[in-house]
């Protein structure tokens, strides 16, 4: 059926859109608008359907009307049945619609009985999810509520959509099907059209009503109350229409019946009249015959015998007459002569109304009494020969007849009377016979004068009518009565019975038998009672059914819509509340975090000071623990704040150029202490494909790596390593076999071959296959060459820790979710780090993934999208960060390490310093290399300035001679130019101080370099070993350091508070700084106008007139301007104190030390901030960044 296939299309297309809706479900309004557009679409469909039907209907009205009207009944019934079945289909369609909707809903969830079930099931799902989350945190709870509500609302909306769609569709498809059906049936198109739009022409109104209803339900934003009113009106109207249809249908039926009866009756009357007239004409002709041959001839040509014979033989011409006779006009004076002439006496009729009695014997009759005139019968048809000699004038009826006939000259009729012979009613027709032809205008006296005789004929009316009715069809259906109504008050029944079943319908037709004096009527009735007007009943029933059906559908739809709207409103309210709660939560979090931080700073400061006082060991331990906990708490609060910020979308990423490698070095310096305590090896490797400078948010990038490395350090015990490597994502998109990068190559080789032990990893421990950690990254599949300035970094953090249990792997990125609750007991932490990392990675347009095996380790990988930066794009502030010294450039080094990866890491660090590296995997190989170099002409080893030996290799080789060989490859034992010999440096993760001392004393090595390798450390070590650098900077006690840092520095203190100013001045002067104080931002701006002598500036945030931020912006703007001028050479560098670039470090002094403030500080160009009042350590940390490097360079 077309309906089915259409329906299946509908089924398939709807879920598709539904899914689409699901994708958009996060955006609530998007969904709402989609629902609106859907409604429009539906209405459009409805209108289109209506138009299509209408377009078929209208042409039909023009060319199919004639054919329509005469549709045969059988056909009607047939098509009526079809329509009924269609209606059934329509009804079942709607009842199915619920099922359809639920089917679609449950398509993903499996079988479910109804939509509400599905919703409740979804609710349950949400609830269970909610509960899960509730255990963890209310943050997530709020999210899930808002998620759930939006999902629920969208689902509900979808649901109604489907229901109403199905309703309208059912209607439309019903119409469409009818159209298709019509087109398909080419044999009876007109019949079908006729049926659909002829018998159901009132249905058209219903369809219009349905259209309006659909329109009102779907499109017009009426209130439900109005919709219901509309529906009620429609319903009542439909019922009324149905009754009207019935009434008008039955009326039509009756009128048609009446018409039929009238036409039948008239037809019969006309025929009867015709027959009678024909018969009368013959009688007339006979009269003329008599006048011609009897009176016109002398002697007469006719005698009784001739007349009788002739009349008998021509009786076929007068089939209705029982007999004819001719009476002669005889006046009384001629009676005797006449009687003599004929040999019989004129006899009198026995009674008045038995004129033509057959069985009477004329001889027995009395002679006629004396009268003026007689009309004795002289000729008669043989059938009525007995009336010969009877005086017609003696019968009352006949006499009247005769008198009228001769006066009018026309045939006249008697009133009906009973014919003796047949016992039927009959009439006698009488014609006068004149002896002279008379003009049509002759007067009655002339006629009477000219009369010579009378011709009469008796008619048997019942047999006449009987015969006639026999000739006509459908004589069974009607009852015919013929009356003589000459006396209107007492009509005489001439034919038929008075019995008729149906007395309701009656038709009287006039009969004209040519006698103006006599009136006859034919009365017709139907024999049977009228049949029920089935067509009217049927069509009204159909209309009623349609109205009921549509009303039900619409009512259901309206109810559903109302329900859904109600729920929608509820959900919206819930959503608003949830969102408000979310906002409140975020605000609460932020506020609380701020508020906690301030007192925590106090706690920490006090603890710090407490630790500086005289305490016993126990007290120190307590204080330290408290301090550590406080620090952790602060970092946790920062994380929570970060999380809340990311969640609310308020976190904005910076886009500043920064150097990637120093950032990584910095991260590692954080963990070096902890890792060496645990004996874990830390290593970092950056592929040479990765550009020096990238543009992005260094702080957040660092945060991600810190989080990952922190986790790794936390979960790795005693053995193994943590290895961070940075590659371009493009490096791994190519097939592993073609990988150029040695570290990647090695790790791939390792994944292929895990049999060899110790494993060829950084520390020799087994690791998981890192290639798997980025297996699912979509970003790697995407090849967008478009923007060449965008680089995608792939950072991998590999550890040999405890690993993550498989069942916990799925929720590892959920906030506040650790692998299991015992983890937090064992390792501490909140489990928010990974979640923050994931969100940060998302923000940076990357992906994060991991692979982990219990007791083997985990490898986390993430990608970030950064832009390629230029070295020159680093601003003045950053320039000192990575002042790679050129002193090692071109040097050569030999690295002896059996672990290829570790060797590569070392090579990476050395190459950063511009040192070319040769790698030997064992000491022996190194020896070979060294001696080979010697023998082959001293090309390679000469210029070899250092040998770096890993401690593992060193320890493995117990033979001291080998060690000695390294020291003196030529083997002559004479150390001639010590400076020229390569320096031997031992690389160690952990080494006991005495062992180190011993080795140094033995002269076997020059220095020990502690891992993890960092550029700074490596540089200092090499500088020391090679003696090329400045004096090594040994870590001294901080305050001394602070004194060193600040001594002789010109420092500007800007504060409006005189006390604060004095205190700051005092504090700074204590460390040897030369302090200048000003009390306003404006003064500071003036003083810091280049050239100036200040090395740094401490500035209060809150100042009247011009606050710290404002002043800083002014200063920075001025500096940038001058820097540009200097760079372009507009002004001479001498004028500005020979400084190529001006950037005065400005530090904010602030009382509220919160993250937001620090960000704000940085945003407006400040370099850092210190808390008020000054604390030594904090001050040191703040200024060290600036003065350390400047002290280094100058």
């Amino acid at each position, binding site marked *: 059926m077309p309906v089915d296939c259409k329906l299946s299309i509908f089924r398939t297309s709807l879920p598709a859109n539904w899914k689409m809706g699901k994708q958009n479900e996060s955006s609530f309004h998007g969904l709402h608008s989609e629902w609106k557009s859907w409604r429009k679409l539906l209405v459009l469909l409805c209108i289109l359907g209506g138009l299509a039907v209408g377009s078929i209907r209208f042409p039909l009205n023009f060319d199919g009307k004639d054919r329509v009207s005469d549709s045969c009944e059988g056909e009607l019934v047939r098509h009526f049945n079809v329509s009924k079945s269609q209606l059934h289909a329509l009804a079942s369609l709607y009842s199915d619609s619920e099922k359809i909707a639920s089917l679609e809903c449950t398509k993903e969830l499996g079988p479910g009985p109804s939509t509400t079930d599905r919703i409740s099931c979804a609710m349950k799902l949400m609830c269970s999810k909610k509960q899960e989350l509730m255990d963890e945190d209310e943050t997530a709870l709020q999210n899930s509520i808002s998620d759930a509500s939006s999902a629920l609302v969208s689902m509900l909306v979808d649901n109604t959509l489907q229901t109403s769609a199905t309703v309208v569709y059912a209607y439309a498809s019903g119409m469409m099907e009818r159209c298709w059906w019509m087109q398909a049936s080419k044999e009876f198109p007109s019949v079908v059209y006729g049926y659909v739009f002829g018998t159901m022409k009132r249905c058209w109104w219903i369809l219009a009503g349905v259209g309006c209803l659909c329109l009102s339900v779907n499109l017009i934003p009426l209130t439900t109350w109005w919709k219901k009113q509309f529906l009620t009106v429609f319903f009542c109207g439909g019922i009324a229409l149905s009754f009207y249809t019935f009434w008008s249908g039955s009326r039509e039926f009756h009128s048609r019946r009446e018409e039929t009866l009238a036409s039948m009756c008239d037809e019969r009357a006309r025929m009867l009249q015709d027959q009678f007239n024909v018969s009368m004409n013959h009688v007339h002709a006979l009269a003329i015959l008599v006048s011609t041959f009897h009176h016109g001839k002398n002697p007469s040509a006719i005698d009784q015998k001739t007349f009788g014979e002739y009349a008998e033989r021509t009786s076929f011409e007068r089939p209705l007459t029982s007999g004819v006779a001719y009476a002669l006009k005889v006046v009384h004076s001629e009676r005797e002569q006449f009687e003599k002439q004929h040999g019989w006496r004129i006899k009198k009729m026995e009674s008045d109304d038995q004129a033509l009695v057959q069985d009477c014997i004329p001889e027995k009759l009395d002679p006629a009494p004396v009268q003026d005139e007689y009309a004795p019968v002289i000729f008669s048809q043989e059938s009525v020969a007995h009336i010969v000699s009877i005086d017609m004038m003696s019968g009352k009826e006949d006499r009247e007849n005769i008198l009228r006939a001769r006066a009018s000259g026309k045939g006249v009729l008697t009133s009906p009377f009973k014919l003796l012979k047949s016992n039927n009613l009959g009439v006698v027709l009488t014609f006068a016979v004149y002896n002279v032809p008379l003009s049509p205008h002759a007067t009655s006296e002339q006629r009477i004068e000219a009369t010579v005789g009378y011709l009469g004929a008796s008619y048997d009316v019942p047999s006449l009518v009987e015969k006639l009715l026999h000739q006509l069809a459908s004589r069974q259906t009607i009852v015919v009565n013929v009356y003589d109504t000459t006396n209107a008050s007492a009509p005489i029944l001439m034919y038929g019975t008075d019995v008729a079943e149906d007395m309701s319908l009656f038709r009287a037709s006039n009969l004209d038998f040519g006698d103006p004096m006599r009136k006859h009527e034919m009365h017709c009735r139907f024999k049977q009672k009228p049949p029920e007007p089935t067509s009217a009943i049927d069509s009204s029933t159909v209309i009623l059914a349609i109205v009921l059906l549509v009303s039900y559908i619409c009512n259901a739809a309206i109810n559903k819509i109302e329900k859904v709207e109600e729920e929608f409103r509820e959900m919206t309210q819930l959503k608003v509340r949830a969102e408000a709660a979310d906002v409140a939560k975020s605000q609460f979090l932020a506020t609380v975090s701020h508020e906690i931080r301030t007192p925590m700073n106090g706690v920490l400061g006090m603890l710090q000071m407490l630790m500086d006082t005289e305490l016993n060991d126990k007290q120190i331990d307590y204080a330290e623990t408290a301090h550590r906990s406080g620090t952790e708490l602060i970092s946790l609060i920062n994380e929570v704040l970060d999380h809340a910020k990311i969640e609310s979308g308020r976190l904005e990423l910076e886009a500043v150029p920064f150097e990637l490698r120093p950032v990584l070095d910095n991260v590692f310096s954080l963990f070096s202490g902890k890792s060496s305590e645990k004996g874990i090896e830390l290593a970092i490797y950056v592929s040479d494909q990765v550009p020096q400078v990238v543009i992005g948010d260094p702080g957040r990038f660092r945060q991600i790596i810190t989080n990952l490395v922190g986790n790794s350090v936390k979960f790795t015990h005693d053995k193994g390593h943590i290895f961070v490597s940075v590659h371009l994502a493009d490096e791994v998109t190519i097939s592993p076999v073609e990988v150029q990068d040695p570290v990647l190559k090695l790790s791939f080789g390792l994944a292929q071959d895990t049999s060899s032990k110790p494993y060829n990893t950084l520390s020799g421990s087994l690791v998981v296959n890192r290639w798997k950690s980025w297996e699912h990254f979509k970003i790697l599949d995407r090849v967008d060459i478009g923007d060449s300035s965008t680089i995608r970094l792939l950072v991998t953090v590999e550890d040999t820790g405890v690993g993550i249990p498989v069942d916990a792997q799925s929720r590892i990125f959920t906030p506040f979710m650790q692998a299991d609750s015992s983890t937090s007991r064992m390792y501490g932490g909140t489990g928010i780090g990974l979640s923050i990392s994931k969100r940060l990675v998302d923000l940076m347009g990357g992906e994060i993934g991991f692979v982990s095996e219990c007791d083997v380790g985990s490898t986390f990988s993430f990608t970030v999208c950064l832009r390629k930066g230029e070295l020159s794009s680093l601003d003045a502030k950053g320039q000192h960060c990575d002042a790679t010294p050129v002193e090692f450039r071109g040097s050569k080094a030999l690295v002896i390490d059996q672990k290829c990866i570790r060797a590569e890491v070392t090579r990476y660090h050395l190459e950063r310093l511009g040192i070319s590296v040769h790698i030997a995997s064992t000491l022996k190989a190194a020896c070979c290399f060294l001696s080979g170099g010697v023998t082959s002409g001293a090309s390679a080893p000469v210029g070899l300035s250092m040998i770096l030996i890993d401690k593992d290799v060193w320890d493995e080789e117990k033979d001291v001679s080998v060690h000695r060989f390294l020291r003196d490859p030529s083997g002559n034992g004479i150390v001639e130019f010590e400076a020229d010999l390569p320096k031997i440096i031992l690389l160690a993760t952990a080494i006991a101080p005495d062992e180190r001392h011993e080795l140094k004393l033995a002269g076997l090595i020059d220095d020990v370099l502690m891992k993890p390798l960092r550029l700074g450390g490596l540089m200092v070590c090499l500088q020391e070993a090679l003696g090329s650098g400045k004096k090594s900077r040994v870590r001294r006690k901080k305050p001394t350091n602070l004194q060193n840092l600040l001594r002789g520095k010109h420092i500007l203190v800007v504060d409006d508070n005189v006390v604060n100013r*004095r205190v700051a001045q005092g*504090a700074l002067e204590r460390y040897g700084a030369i302090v200048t104080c000003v009390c306003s931002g404006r003064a500071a701006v003036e003083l810091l106008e280049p050239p100036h002598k200040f090395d740094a500036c401490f500035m209060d945030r809150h100042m009247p007139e011009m606050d710290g931020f404002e002043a800083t912006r002014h200063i920075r703007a001025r500096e940038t301007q001058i820097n540009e001028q200097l760079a372009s050479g507009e002004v001479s560098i001498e004028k500005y104190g020979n400084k190529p670039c001006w950037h005065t470090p400005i530090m904010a002094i602030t009382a509220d030390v919160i993250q937001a403030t620090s960000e704000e500080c940085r945003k407006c160009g400040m370099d850092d901030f210190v808390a008020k009042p000054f604390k030594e350590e904090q001050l040191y940390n703040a200024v060290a960044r600036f003065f350390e490097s400047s002290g280094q360079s100058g």
Partner: protein
Amino acid sequence: MDVLSQLRHQLADYTNSLHRDGFLDDQFSQLQQLQDESSPDFAMEVVSLFFEDCQKLVTNMARALELQAVDFKQVDSSVHQLKGSSSSVGAARIKNLCVAFKTCCDSQNRDGCMRCLQEVNRECVLLKNKLQTLFRLEQQIISAGGSIPM
């Protein structure tokens, strides 16, 4: 027991009592630590600066609060200043009072402000007296030929 050690003892006791009663906090100790040969009167200098500042601010606030339409913003900024300087000096009680004062300002509570102001004034006088005693003790120690223990 000689005079000097007695004085020292007295000073230590007195300082402790000040700390104990919450008049001073560690910041004051830090201030004291900051004075050395180059600036022997650093603490006193700062403290006198503080009291000058204090007096000025109190006068300002009193004037502002007497007006018909109190400019709470101005009062607030004065309180903020006072809070900053008191925390710099280590005058803990005044600092704490300032916090309460600020709350009153924020809620535009004039009576509360007046009350706070009076309390601040009283605390200032009290602290001034206490510190004068303290410095006198120190002076006595120095004039006795001793040095102030830090």
